[in-house]
């Protein structure tokens, strides 16, 4: 076990989230059980007030859960100095078997939290509480995921051993190596670049189409494409964006790009990517919510248009930021090819 201020605050954070979430679940249980929209009794009124307060708190709690990925990364960086052989966050993750699963699960949980926040947002705009019960039910679905997330992080930090030598990111993302990192790193960069940059016109034309025309299937496709693009983007970062940032064809680490040496460009990239993906989810998800009837239709139409606009802005920002190191390299090397 390793203890430093980062790790301790990580423990405290997990504990705090767990407490908050237990509170959320007790309220949820009451609401799922006793909620009766047709009742005008005092009990229902109290429940509505409780729901109003607690869902606001839960919303921020889940928001923090999303942002805590950054904290997790910073903690990893702080550990990299302590764990022999680690040198960077990737190495720290590799120090035991829980590291990478914890990170991946955290990303998946972040998306589920985002989905909940969107549902909640729609619900607050409805005058008939149409989604209230549904959104509290969803909290129960989220509970096991969050529990696994807390558990994995706990296990990861608990099992860190300063005496075990780990490998650094150079090995994890080695082209001839084994494992997920290496297989992504050995994807042909040219193909990846093509896929990556061909997505822009596809996305823009989808967005343009949906801004002129309402199409339920279009909204679903847009969100689906957003998810696919998220995966392509992560692969793209590993495959060629990171090497261009390092100006080294063999360095593929997707985490070191957040370091100061690289002007924190990684933070910018991931922030744009996450925000863009988040807003890409909205059109499809709200289309799904529409099927629940009530007044949702009117509220959601406006949201869909807005979120498509916002997501396109952030996708363009993300692509521009990914393009930047490539352009800079081309200028400096007068048109050289990094990968040949």
């Amino acid at each position: 076990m390793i203890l430093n201020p980062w790790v301790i605050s990580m423990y405290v954070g997990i504990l705090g989230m767990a407490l908050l979430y237990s509170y959320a679940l007790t309220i949820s249980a009451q609401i799922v059980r006793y909620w009766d929209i047709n009742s005008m009794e005092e009990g229902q009124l109290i429940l509505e007030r409780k729901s109003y307060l607690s869902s606001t708190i839960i919303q921020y709690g889940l928001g923090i859960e999303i942002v805590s990925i950054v904290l997790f990364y910073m903690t990893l960086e702080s550990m990299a100095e302590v764990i022999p052989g680690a040198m960077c966050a990737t190495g720290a993750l590799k120090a035991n078997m829980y590291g990478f699963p914890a990170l991946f699960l955290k990303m998946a949980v972040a998306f589920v939290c985002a989905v909940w926040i969107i549902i909640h947002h729609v619900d607050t705009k409805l005058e008939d509480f149409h989604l209230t019960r549904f959104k509290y039910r969803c909290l129960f679905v989220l509970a096991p995921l969050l529990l696994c997330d807390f558990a994995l992080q706990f296990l990861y930090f608990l099992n860190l051993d300063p005496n075990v030598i780990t490998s650094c990111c150079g090995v994890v993302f080695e082209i001839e190596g084994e494992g997920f990192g290496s297989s992504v790193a050995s994807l042909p960069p040219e193909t990846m670049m093509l896929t990556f940059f061909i997505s822009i016109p596809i996305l823009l034309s989808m967005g343009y189409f949906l801004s002129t025309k309402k199409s339920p299937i279009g909204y679903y496709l847009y969100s689906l494409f957003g998810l696919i693009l998220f995966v392509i983007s992560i692969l793209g970062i590993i495959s060629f964006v990171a090497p261009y940032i390092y100006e080294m064809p063999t360095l593929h680490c997707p985490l070191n790009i957040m370091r100061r040496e690289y002007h924190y460009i990684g933070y910018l990239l991931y922030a744009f990517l996450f925000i863009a993906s988040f807003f890409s989810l909205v059109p499809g998800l709200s289309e799904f919510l529409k099927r629940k009837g009530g007044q949702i239709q009117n509220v959601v139409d406006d949201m869909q248009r807005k979120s498509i606009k916002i997501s396109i802005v952030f996708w363009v920002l993300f692509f521009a930021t990914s393009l930047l190191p490539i352009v800079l390299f081309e200028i400096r090397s007068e048109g050289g090819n990094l990968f040949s």
Partner: protein
Amino acid sequence: MIRVVKASKTYNKGKPNQVDAVNEVTLHVARGEMAVIHGASGSGKTSLLTLIGCISRPTSGEIHVAGKTISRLPEKFMTMHRREHIGIIFQQFNLILDLSVEQNVGLPLFPLNMSKTLISERVDHLLAKMSLSKRRDFLVKQLSGGEQQRVAIARALINNPEILLADEPTAHLDTALTKELMETLAAIKKDARTIVIASHDPLVYNHPFVDRIFEMKDGKVVEE
């Protein structure tokens, strides 16, 4: 404009101190009418006004105000509806004594993200209408009862409401001021605003501009 259908408000339901403050009340007030709810103290006038004014929710029944059914609305939307359509003059004025007249009158507009100049323009306009322009920067506690009453009216009108509710507005006024108040309300009525006054003051319910009188007794409207 206001339609109440079999609305009830029960306090402390199911407990020994249960009170049926409003009991299956049905009433209707059309746009531009002035109505008076008349009844003894404790007959449920204030409770009924809070139901119409989107301040509390009925225990049963339906209430439609300014084009919306408010009896089952979440509190947040009730507040929004109130801000948009309803002005209320409370029995105790509910003014903030240590703020100036201008601040008191402009207060309801602060949550609406309105520009300072726009708020100030509206306040000026209303203060002139209520003959309070010279008192603009006075603290409310420095004003006489009649002046405080007019500040309360100005504040109730600041959001340009279609409906004005007043709870015992003459309780603290002498005869002359009561007559003055009724003239003011009559002038407001001429702007096609709907007015509902709870009062047991003959000077109020006998006023020629009153279109309807609802007689309340033990939570019920017994006579129109």
